[in-house]
């Protein structure tokens, strides 16, 4: 973990502030853009570090958004974790507190209904993009097969997510992936 120049730290912080306002459907939907900036643009993480940041945080107890802090820590230590986590939390939390009551009181308005209905398919597309980026950047095919199997199981069955996480851990420990 290396220290980040102030200009890069500010760029990282600013980008996560922006992503926070775009994270309709949760932070996981903006993972493709995090990858674009952290891996492709700034070169702070490689593909394996990026994927493992999400995997570690998703498997650990606590809010899923913590993967953002793991990413920031891997990129630039505690300062990086502070930049990414504060950046992703601050605007969306403030906005939610400010407009939640307003939106709830006007949920029957045509514009509010149209916003919810219009953004839903985009969120689905962004979640698919997240899955795609996490899968395709890692060499090999077994992890892709496991991803597909997990997606089908979640979709078609009621198997508990922890069972899938445990199965993935066992397969990884056994060296299958």
């Amino acid at each position, binding site marked *: 973990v290396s220290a980040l120049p102030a200009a890069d730290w500010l760029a990282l912080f600013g980008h996560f502030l922006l992503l926070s306002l775009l994270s309709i459907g949760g932070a996981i939907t903006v993972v493709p853009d995090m990858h*674009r900036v952290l891996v492709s643009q700034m070169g702070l993480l490689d593909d394996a570090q990026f994927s493992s940041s999400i995997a570690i945080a998703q498997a650990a107890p606590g809010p899923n958004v913590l993967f953002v802090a793991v990413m920031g820590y891997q990129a630039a230590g505690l300062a990086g974790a502070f930049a990414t986590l504060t950046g992703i939390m601050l605007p969306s939390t403030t906005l939610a507190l400010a407009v939640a009551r307003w939106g709830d009181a006007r949920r029957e308005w045509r514009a509010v209904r149209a*916003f919810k209905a219009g*953004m839903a398919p985009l969120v*689905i597309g962004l979640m698919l993009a997240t899955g795609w980026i996490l899968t395709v950047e890692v060499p090999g095919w077994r992890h892709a097969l496991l991803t597909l199997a997990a997606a089908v199981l979640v979709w078609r069955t009621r198997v508990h997510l922890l069972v899938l996480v445990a199965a993935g851990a066992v397969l990884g420990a056994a060296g299958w992936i």
Partner: protein
Amino acid sequence: VPACAALAVVSFVTVGLLRWPLVGVLLALGAAACTFAWLRIRGQAAMEKGR
């Protein structure tokens, strides 16, 4: 449903495959999607009113 599927596919392709910046995609595609939804809801309301 076809329109929703098309919107989901376009957002997947532009962000996941083409790696376009999210802010532009969300502003352009989100505006189009919300406008489309608004028109559909208005159309449904007009139909219900006409019955």
